[in-house]
């Protein structure tokens, strides 16, 4: 049994548009944009059943590079995904991988850009779904049930 990478769902959501991923952490308000190579890796993680080793081997094959070279290029990115709490590892085995997509002509270190501007917005005008807990403070009303 190996360690499979998985998106930290449901707190982390993502969408890929024109080959570039946007990731949103619903817990913190932080969001991220990924370059095409990082996005192709994210896509493999989001599909499920990918180990870091499997992704490295897939990219090495796609770009005609050696595994050690690709591992050196990708390890900081995997570490960053974990440090930002975007992915978790779960036990499982590498699923059968098809050919890894070649997201750009040359292999470069994948990049992830982080944006924190939404957090200011959340502080300024927070919005909550509430039940009894969190209900606004209220004065007694004639419609209240007798104590």
């Amino acid at each position, binding site marked *: 049994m190996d360690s499979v990478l998985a998106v930290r769902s*449901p707190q982390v*959501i*993502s*969408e*890929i*548009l*024109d*080959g*570039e*991923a*946007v990731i*949103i952490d*619903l817990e913190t*308000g932080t*969001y991220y*944009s990924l370059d095409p190579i990082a996005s192709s890796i994210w896509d493999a993680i989001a599909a499920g059943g990918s180990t870091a080793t499997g992704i490295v081997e897939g990219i090495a094959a796609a770009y005609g590079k050696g595994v050690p070279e690709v591992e050196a290029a990708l390890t900081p990115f995997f570490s960053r995904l974990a440090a930002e709490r975007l992915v978790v590892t779960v036990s499982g085995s590498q699923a059968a991988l098809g050919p890894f997509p070649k997201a750009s002509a040359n292999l470069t270190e994948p990049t992830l850009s982080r*944006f924190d*501007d*939404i957090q*200011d*917005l*959340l502080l*300024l*005008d*927070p*919005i*909550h*779904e*509430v*039940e*009894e807990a*969190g*209900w*606004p403070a*209220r*004065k*007694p*009303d*004639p*419609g*209240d*049930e007798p104590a």
Partner: protein
Amino acid sequence: MTDGGATPPASLPETTFDRMTDAFRRAARAAGGEEERAFVIGGQQLVLRTAGPAMLPVLAPALAHLVAAPGEPAGLEVFAWDSASTGVELPAPASTEDGDRHVWQPGVGILTVLDDSRRRAVVWVASAADVPSNEVAAPLRSFLHLAFYELGAQFVHAAAVGRADGGLLVVGRSGAGKSTTALACLGSPLGVAGDDYVLATDGPEPRVHSLYSSAKLEPHQLRRFPHLSGAVVNPDAAGEKPMILLCPRWAGSVSAGFPLRGAVTPRVVGRGPTRARRVGGAALLAALAPSTIFQLPGTGRHTLARIGSLLRHLPCWELELGENVSDIPLALERVLEEARP
């Protein structure tokens, strides 16, 4: 003010929504009756009922361009009251699971309770007089977001400008120039469907529907539009953005909506000409989706997917805002020409 002759019910209603409507009715009796206004938003007849007149200046001005004749069946219905003018306090929520949704904005003190159909909502504030102008600029956001979500339309944090035969969604992070882009179009051949929030529908013919005929600007942006400074409705409100109501003065420049031909994301350069260049949709998705999702309650994953789908159907441009705001409508018209199907 007291609760007047309004009597509480013999037994408490079972759902929070029913408790809220019961309180609303008591508030209306205490205030001398209901006021009713009708609007057409996104093709839906919205009937707004307020307990007395106090909530009308909070909820109605930004919807002035969408006023409809009363008497049509309500597709959407809102009941609103405040405690200060009616003496009727907020009831306790029901403790059972009832399918209602309760959205609380503690920063501005607005509670919105929707029933399980999401077509009806009760809105409460402690005092209508204390609602900030920035809420008056974009009222009922939580309700309209959740109601139209069920109807397949997406509330988005974006401006929109265009003609009856086609227009552009204008997306950007706070301060990127959405309002500048929209307000530059006042008096131009391009109508303004919104400066901060609009409703968008996806599909083979994506459309934008106007929600609010209001605009908010940073004080430094107002200097670029000196002719608007006399129209600021909150000149003395500390800590709030200057807010402008476009109706009736600029009613001719307000659009109820149009087919979407593309999306632009402005970037303030401040020198040289205003010009557009094609970009991929991901930058616009990053500019639009997070600020939409976090300003609205509870549909994050689906909202992201919907916005992604919408942008997938639209060509995208970055609009570099140059020295003169008067160049902006012309640059947008060139984009629309390029986007013509």
